[in-house]
């Protein structure tokens, strides 16, 4: 167990060092949420009910999701591309632990989006960005990070197992923005699309942080959301496990661990 934690830490630090110089991923963290926040502020601020904190949190979530989506889809392929996948598979540590660590690093970096979006709301537009319920906001935020990480864990093996899935996943940025209710509640979507939202950990994560930051929910309701969020996250990771096993079995059978 301690060993697994050490590998998670080592892989997370390794990933952070790589992401820190990856311009595309930095664009996802810094530039994209900046523009999403500005655009959404302009669109919504003349409305009758406008909550700048909701926009800041929503734009933050878009940046976090974009980074996690793209980087999880590339998590295994990137190792293969640089020739380290064989060495990772050949080591005694399970590959799923290494990828989990890499995605923890990604999740931590994605959190920087919040600073960018806060700056847009508070300094550029001059709004007071306040958290209605700081006591529940902290666990909501923490559990939301777990939900995003777990979803990334499920995405990581899919694009490797089926190349077409990997290609489709690259355009799953905006559908998840909408289905998870990052920038507006899913009540605005047709009801037939709601079940798709309910199975997504990011939806429950977004609901929890929005409720905690904007207020209006009792602790009992939040507790229920946290439980569903953690259960759906656990389900995503449990679902990912056999996919990781399948990747390795298939790659070792087909001889596709290396590019050459």
């Amino acid at each position: 167990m301690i060993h697994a934690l050490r590998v998670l830490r080592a892989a997370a630090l390794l990933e952070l060092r790589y992401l820190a110089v990856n311009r595309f991923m930095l664009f996802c963290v810094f530039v994209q949420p900046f523009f999403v926040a500005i655009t959404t502020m302009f669109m919504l601020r003349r409305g009758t009910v406008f909550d700048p904190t909701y926009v800041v949190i929503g734009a933050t979530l878009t940046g976090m999701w974009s980074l996690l989506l793209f980087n999880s889809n590339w998590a295994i392929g990137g190792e293969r591309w640089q020739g380290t996948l064989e060495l990772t598979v050949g080591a005694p540590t399970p590959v799923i632990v290494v990828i989990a660590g890499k995605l923890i690093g990604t999740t931590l970096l994605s959190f920087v989006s919040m600073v960018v979006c806060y700056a847009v709301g508070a300094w550029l537009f001059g709004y007071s960005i306040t958290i209605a319920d700081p006591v529940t906001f902290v666990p909501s935020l923490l559990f939301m990070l777990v939900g995003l990480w777990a979803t990334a864990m499920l995405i990581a093996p899919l694009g490797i197992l089926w190349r077409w899935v990997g290609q489709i996943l690259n355009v799953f940025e905006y559908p998840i923005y909408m289905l998870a209710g990052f920038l507006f509640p899913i009540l605005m979507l047709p009801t037939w699309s709601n079940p798709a939202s309910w199975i997504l950990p990011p939806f429950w994560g977004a609901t929890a942080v929005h409720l905690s930051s904007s207020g209006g929910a009792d602790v009992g309701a939040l507790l229920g959301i946290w439980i569903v969020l953690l259960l759906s996250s656990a389900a995503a990771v449990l679902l990912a496990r056999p996919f990781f096993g399948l990747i390795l079995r298939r790659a070792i059978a087909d001889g596709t661990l290396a590019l050459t």
Partner: protein
Amino acid sequence: MNAIALENAGRVYRVTTGFVRRHAKEIQAVDGLSFEVARGELFGMLGPNGAGKTTTIKMLTTLLRPTSGRVVVAGFDVARNADRIRPLIGFAFGGERGLYYRLNGRDNLRYFAELYRLEPSRINPRVEELLDLVSLRDRADERVEGYSRGMKQRLHLARMLLHDPNILFLDEPTIGLDPVGARELRETIRELHRRGKTILLTTHYMFEADELCDRIVVIGKGRLLASGTPRELKALVRDLTVVEIEVFGATPALIDQVRALDFVDSVAVEQRELRQLLRVQTPIADEALPRLLASLGGLAVGRASVREATLEDAYVRLVGKTE
């Protein structure tokens, strides 16, 4: 007990060709290969490109599943007990890939030390010890992307040794290295052998195998062509002499004609820009040269010489028979 054993091991790759109409094709990379490596032995595997050396190493290192036969490492079957084998072996493949270029050499080793489950208190001393062994301590804080090919190769060697495995697999470790770098690496391999490690090494360089290995197997087209000590393999060509003749514009038909001569054992052709170097193995020593020159007809001939056969000639003879 042997450290490594292959029993009739085979590996078939299935590949598809075509864009609209896809056709499946099977390529037999390794075909019924059998050999054993004793504990503490430095064992060489020789063969031309495409002979199946890398495929064999990948099967032995649990990264590729054999499609037939049995491959056993440290007493465990690679198909069934890969998890038991991985902590006991180390491997390094030739080439520059397989390192985290944005990290420095020391951090690369620290990262892999975590993957190999080294005790936290052991990681730093072990990393420094290995940096000394491969003479990289002075450059250990530089990013790997700035390393020369030889430095990357030495870093691979250090990575392979982190968990102090007893069985080592080296796939063409000196490929692309300058002569000094290659000599230093060979010295490190010799030192590991002295420390009792079992080493399976593939190489293209005959002198390297001759200098380092206790025993050698030669493989071609996935099959075992010969095995024995370097001395035993050299004995295969003990009675032969090599005549080297530089010619200009020899056609494949003419080379086949030379090959068919009753005093010719084998012919290897090396293309050198406009010239070709014919290496003819023959049992009749000096008498062969005038007869060979006569058989070349009016072809323009450059330098010609006669010499004793070497291990490389034994290899050429073995491999030449499969082509």
